[in-house]
């Protein structure tokens, strides 16, 4: 347990209405989302420590990952 | 303390100017604001923001001593004392001292209320020493 995932508002229901959840390093963002029960394809944007990353990014120790879903739409 | 602006962050939305007029006059009217956004479009495609630096040159020339300091340490116009002489307007190096008689019966300037900073979504404005 060594990184922090912060999903956008509408995704909080997937993690018990919390603002953030601790996740393990060494997995990709995609795998991590699946483990949390969040469908990876609803995530539009992944930002790790302020930089945009692909869902295949392998989570590192101490990362803060923001995951944005576009629920409300365009 | 004074207001600062980073023009490169400004998106020209004018929320700051609505908040300003609401503070100064209790109105929603950006034409009665004490800061200026100059759009430069279609080229070069940037906004330039001008704000009060609290230099006090306006106060120095005011014949009725209408421009005084408030408890935030900022110069402001005491509307009741302003005689509309316009002496302050040309003194302002930033061109943010206003007198538009068709809109208000007084001159006005920034009184450092901070509401513009509070509504700026791009953090283009801040107050510091």
């Amino acid at each position, binding site marked *: 347990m060594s990184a922090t995932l*912060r999903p*956008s*508002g*509408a995704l909080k229901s997937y993690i018990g209405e919390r603002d953030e959840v601790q996740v393990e390093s060494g997995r990709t963002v995609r795998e991590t989302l699946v483990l949390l029960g969040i*469908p990876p*394809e*609803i*995530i*539009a*944007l992944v*930002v790790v420590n302020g930089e*945009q990353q692909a869902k295949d990014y392998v989570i590192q120790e101490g990362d803060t990952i*923001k995951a*944005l*879903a*576009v*629920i*409300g*739409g*365009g | 303390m004074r207001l600062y602006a980073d023009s*490169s*962050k400004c*998106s*020209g*939305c*004018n*929320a700051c100017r*609505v*908040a300003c*007029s*609401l503070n100064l*006059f*209790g*109105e*929603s*009217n*950006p*034409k*009665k604001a004490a800061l200026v956004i*100059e*759009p430069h*479009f*279609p*080229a*070069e*495609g*940037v*906004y330039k923001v001008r704000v009060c630096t609290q230099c006090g040159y306006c106060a120095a020339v005011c014949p009725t001593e209408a421009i005084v300091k408030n408890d935030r340490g900022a110069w402001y116009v005491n509307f009741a004392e302003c005689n509309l002489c316009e002496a302050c307007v040309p003194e302002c190096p930033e061109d943010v001292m206003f007198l538009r008689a*068709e*809109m208000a019966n007084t001159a006005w300037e920034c009184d450092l209320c901070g*509401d513009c900073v*509070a*509504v*700026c*979504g*791009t953090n283009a404005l801040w107050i510091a020493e």
Partner: protein
Amino acid sequence: MLNGYGGQILRVNLTEGKISKEPTPPELARDFIGGRGFGAYFLFKEVPKGADPLGAQNKLIISSGPFSGMLVPGGGKCDWTTKSPLTGGYASASLGGHFTAEMKYAGLDSIILEGISPKPVYLFIEDDKIELRDAADLWGKGAIQVEKQFKDKLGEEYQVAVIGPGGEKLVSYASINHDYGRQAGRGGVGTVMGVKKVKAIVIRGTRSVPVADKEAYRQAGMALYKACKEAEFLPEWTRYGTTVVTSWCDEVGALPTRNFSAGSFEGGKTLYGPVMRETIVITDKGCFGCPSPCGKYSRSKKYNLEVEGPEYETIGMMGSNLGISDIEAVAKLNLLCDDLGIDTISAGSAIGWAMECYEKGIFTQKDTDGLDLKFGNVEAAFSLVEKIANKEGLGALLSEGVKKASKKIGQGSEKFAIHVKGMEQSAYATHNATAMLISYMTSDVGAHHNRAWAITYDLQVGRDKVVPEKVARVIWLQNFRPMFDVLGGCRLQWVELGIDRDLYVPAIEAITGIRRTWEDLEKTGERIWNLTRLFWARENEDFGREWDMPAPRFYEEPPTTGVTKGQITKLEDVNKLLDMYYEQRGWTSEGMPTSAKLEQLGMAELVA
């Protein structure tokens, strides 16, 4: 004094050159609130049945709302309503920028343009000084040049809405341009302004808008801004604007590719938001009062130009949909469309359709004036945009929109004319996204996304599932989201930043003095939805279920490439979606509001 309103409706009779004002009726404000609500009301009540969209009886109704010009995030939206020359039905286009604020400061809730001017004019409004002025020397000029000319002459406090040559020449999907890159784009509102011979509206107001409770208003406004500024994803939405979704659409097969024949594009990566940000964006450009400016102002070195955008819809329609993968080429297409005054979405669809006709051999170089109209041919696309705006050669056909153009050409081209009710579908491919499909099918202006955007809901529920929950979600969105257009505000702070929509409730009450919960607002949304549906039916004798059908491509032709390869919605599911939709709306199986429904909504008298 009507709190929260300019207080007056301006009528401009262009035929006679007469200008008059009337007080905004308090009951109109109560029942229809403003913006799109006012537009729908005036259209339904004042444009006579069977009016020619390009005739003197049609009106162009321009409306602000209670949020416009106020301390409310996104209070910069203006509604432009008319009977559409593109679809023959209801058109309502939303314009951002700073125009709507100036209307309020000039004391105007609606501007209604009536009749047809005998010569080109522009409407000049400065508080109570309102004049029709000669526009002979502006006629024929590009929208950007004309706006610049006014600003140089009058100053930055004046706001300008202007049509380009496309509007003058009556391209069916001509746009109205403002603030160097904001448009009332869809449904041909610019065409109606063009036929009325109004080149521009120039406006400046100096008044303040009365509010019911000043302190409560200030507090509610500040609370809304605070929520926006604290939103977790404000930096990302500001950095990329609507292009946040470009890569995502490509990934899930929603990115229109080569005339919607597929939903992901092998050349898509160079169109993505971060690439665009790094290569061409120079400034974030916001509409009035916006804390999360989605406008990206760009400079293309390659084409030596500045343009606002391209935003996602334009990237989809003039990039991937044309097989173009160069963001700078898309920026140039964007600028051409803006300056010539035509809608990028409809124009992108028309060119995509023409390219497909060419690749299928329906068109040869004889039909295309020598253009090698293959997908991906950037120069051909540039050329065709100009031909459309000037109605030259093939451009004349395409200027009518894909529904009419494909009907004329036939040879199966109707099957890949991507529209609903004659409006070209905006930039979400719906081969396998049934909620988004029913959203497009039933949108009140034709295939536009702004009423209900439901693609993520498809992904959450299962994209090929045809279940009542999806339809219910779409109906809820259709009743709810357009209320931002009624209020004169922008939905994106709710959509993107995810702020609590209940924060708007105290703002509405403090500004107007009328307490409205979202339940009340959605009820108003439902009434307007039913009213515009009745307008379609009144204006089109054969209106009914057939009009709600999507392009056959989405139920007959599964994509052969991309992530939605082989995926398609079955025709029986399309029909099932419509049945569920009509039932949940309280409409007949032909899609007409029942008298019981109208009674329930308190509309029986209004529409009698």
